């Protein structure tokens, strides 16, 4: 008995000691600790880590940036123009220094673009690169194999961030990342994957307020919420949607919700009857109560939407058909298409076949599975039986490829490249790689072709406005909501401005810690 009491006593002393040790550290002097949502597996922007080093760690920068309305703006490039339909000329900012003190020149830009083109297969298919010519230390010419009017928007793509050739070691392997951004690499722990960056005093963009940013990967959303609450991190995103309200109410912590350029959408398999009937598709869209979904499924992390582009995007056509929730219209359209509930079981039928559809989605994003269930409920109200199924993304995408699906719910990015043509072409073009609905409209195809060859921005947007109207009527894809992000931070974190163009989130050199 004595020995046990002794043990308890020792344990108490140990705990007290740990508490003291804990209290001692943690006072950060303009240090921002971030609970990052993904594991950080590397820092090479051309090998899939561009968003981490570009948007979050702010080590590297792209040639071209975008403002909050998705207008392109100068970054490391000061201006750009097309010379002919296959050539773009880009002028590079004078006096920009890499973190090692050397000056940024056209050769570094050529090196970075060519390297991204070689390593990143997406960059390769976007750029259609033929060659890059260095005209003088501050000018390059990019030649493409076919007309590419969205070149400036592609140069915003994070994988084409500009790095110093010295980032590559003598052995040809990626070594220490050297960029031009407001923060420079201090350390990356290969074991814990914690990334620490420190202020770049010589940043061309002006003064940087934070001294240090520490990115800690915490992949579990509940843990991120608790880490913020306890003060282990100062800033994090995507706490569980259902927890956002509760966390916002905690003293010293606030949660802001924003929409991002990604949409919850249902692709429709046009080869499966009765989905080839536009009236059935329109009925489905009218039967969806988007407000209810945004409120009860997404907890308002995200917002209702009917078109692919959120209002922040200057090219969004806001006059497209809106498909307001109208259950009577939905019933009318289904009646018109010949689907009636003749046996009184609540499910419509035609020629003895019930109106049953499969709804496939994947589990990797938290909103999808509950949304599929909510949709099943809403569609059953108008007499459509939905078999909702959520599987691993590899499995769902496999089944989509094999044609084993009727409706496919996903959360798809629409602003990866800040140009409307990118998303619209991939989704609605007959040979668009994301066009799994097998949609084909010759007018749409000819608009896409023309738009790729038109450099005048206004003219292109006008063409694409027409395209948006056509597909909203044909409706091969039904859009439900904008994908949201919940930014959760301590009240003492100041100067953060949400960037709608970012992937996940973008930190800013204007952020600081208020004492």
């Amino acid at each position, binding site marked *: 008995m004595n020995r046990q009491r002794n043990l308890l006593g020792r344990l108490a002393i140990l*705990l007290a000691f*740990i*508490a003291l*040790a*804990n*209290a001692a550290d943690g006072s950060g002097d303009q240090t921002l600790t971030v609970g990052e949502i993904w*594991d950080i*597996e*590397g820092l090479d922007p051309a*090998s*899939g880590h561009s968003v981490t080093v570009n948007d979050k760690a702010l080590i590297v920068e792209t040639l071209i940036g975008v403002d909050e309305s998705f207008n392109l703006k100068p970054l490391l490039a000061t201006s750009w123009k097309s010379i002919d339909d296959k050539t773009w000329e880009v002028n590079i900012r004078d006096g920009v220094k890499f973190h090692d003190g050397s000056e940024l020149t056209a050769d570094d830009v050529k090196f970075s673009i060519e390297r991204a083109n070689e390593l*990143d*297969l*997406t*960059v390769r*298919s976007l750029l259609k690169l033929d060659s890059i010519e260095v005209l003088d230390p501050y000018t390059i010419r990019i030649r493409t194999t076919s007309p590419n009017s969205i070149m400036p928007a592609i140069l915003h793509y994070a*994988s084409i961030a500009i790095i110093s050739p010295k980032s590559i070691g003598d052995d040809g392997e990626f070594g220490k990342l050297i960029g031009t951004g407001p923060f420079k690499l201090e350390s990356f722990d*290969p*074991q*814990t*994957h*914690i990334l620490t960056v420190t202020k770049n005093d010589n940043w061309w963009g002006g003064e940087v307020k934070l001294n240090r940013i520490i990115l*800690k*990967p*915490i*992949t*579990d959303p*509940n*843990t991120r919420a*608790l*880490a913020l*609450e*306890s003060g*282990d991190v100062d800033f994090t995103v995507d706490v569980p949607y259902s927890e956002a309200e509760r966390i916002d109410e905690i003293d010293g912590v606030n949660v802001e919700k924003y929409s991002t350029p990604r949409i919850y959408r249902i692709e429709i398999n046009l080869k499966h009857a009765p989905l080839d009937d536009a009236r059935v598709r329109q009925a489905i869209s009218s039967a969806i109560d988007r407000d209810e979904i945004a409120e009860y499924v997404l907890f308002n992390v995200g917002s209702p939407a009917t078109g692919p582009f959120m209002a922040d995007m200057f090219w969004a056509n806001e006059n497209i058909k809106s498909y307001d929730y109208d259950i009577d219209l939905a019933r009318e359209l289904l009646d018109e298409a010949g689907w009636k509930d003749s046996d009184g079981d609540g499910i419509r039928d035609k020629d003895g076949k019930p109106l049953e559809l499969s709804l496939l989605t*994947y589990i*990797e*994003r938290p909103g999808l599975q509950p949304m599929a269930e909510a949709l099943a409920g809403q569609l059953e109200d108008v007499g459509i039986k939905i078999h909702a199924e959520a599987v*691993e*993304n*590899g*499995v769902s*995408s*496999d*089944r989509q490829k094999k044609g084993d699906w009727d409706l496919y719910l*996903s*959360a*798809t*990015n629409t602003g*990866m490249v800040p140009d409307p043509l990118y998303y619209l072409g*991939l989704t609605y073009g007959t040979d668009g*790689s*994301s066009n*799994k609905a097998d949609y084909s409209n010759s007018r749409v195809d000819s608009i896409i072709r023309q738009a790729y060859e038109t450099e005048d921005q206004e003219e292109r947007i006008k063409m694409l406005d027409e395209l948006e109207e056509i597909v909203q009527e044909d409706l091969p894809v039904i859009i439900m909501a904008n994908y949201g992000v919940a930014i959760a931070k301590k009240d003492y974190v100041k100067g953060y401005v949400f960037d709608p163009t970012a992937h996940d989130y973008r930190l800013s050199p204007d952020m600081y810690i208020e004492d």
Partner: protein
Amino acid sequence: MMGYLLKRLAFMGVTVLAVCALTFFLMNIIPGGTAELILKHTVLELEEIPTDEQIAEISSRYNLHDPLYIQFGNWLAGALQGDLGSSYIQKKPVSYLLLLRLPATIQLAFAAMSIAVLIGVPLGIFCAIRENKFTDYILRIVTLMGVSMPGFWLALILILFFSVNLKLFPVAGYGELRYLVLPAVALSAHSLALTLRMVRTGMLEVMSQPYIAFAISKGLSPRHVIARHALKNALLPAITVLALSLGHMLGGAVVIESIFAWPGVGSLLVDAISGRDIPLVQGCVLTIVGVFVTINLLVDLTYTYLDPRIRYG
């Protein structure tokens, strides 16, 4: 004994090989194209559709078009020479990635195991001695909760209480000792409860044996009887259970690792599976199975020490 050991070692080799082969073929037949998922875990977003050229390039880069037996043969030939290949996704040698993760896994597993043994065994004995008394009931209810509680829930409750409210330990991460406490406690809960119950049952059974009554009537002190005569025999089933849970802790602590951002082998394996990073999956499985069969062998050898009547030959 020597002959037995050699036979066991040979069987261990066969087991490891069979599991690796099975894993390899399973990885290739589960739905989801390998090349597509590699792309989605490197340059593409989850929702992006890879182009045919991208698929073709990845397939030829990693020889995914070769017949499976050739792919597996190549992997095996490398593995036998100590080369586990390179990760498709992290593009680093598999052995390097494993060596980064193993210390954290071993540390966590042994800490959890120590908690389970150091608390579970004495409390088990204590419960047996106080059979059907108040403290026994309380402890049995608590252990029932320990066995039934989902690990992730306990982990979150521990964080809420000890990190957020009391600020005693960090919420998540890996580093000094204070980072280890909560994940180890959360991971140990199940084994601790199981150990306690096994030891209690074992002790009660042994204590009713005639030789114990004889030892007591011989005038030996109760402490001596329990420690020298009863415990050794009561421990055998508990050791089997503990050894199995040690195996699980080394390879299957995925949930705990993810909640506490603990850089262990379990989460490495799960990430590798979802990205169809086959060399890395193989490396993880090889390691985990290797540890598993070794522990099994050690347990069987321990039996002979604890119960000399057991002879292998």
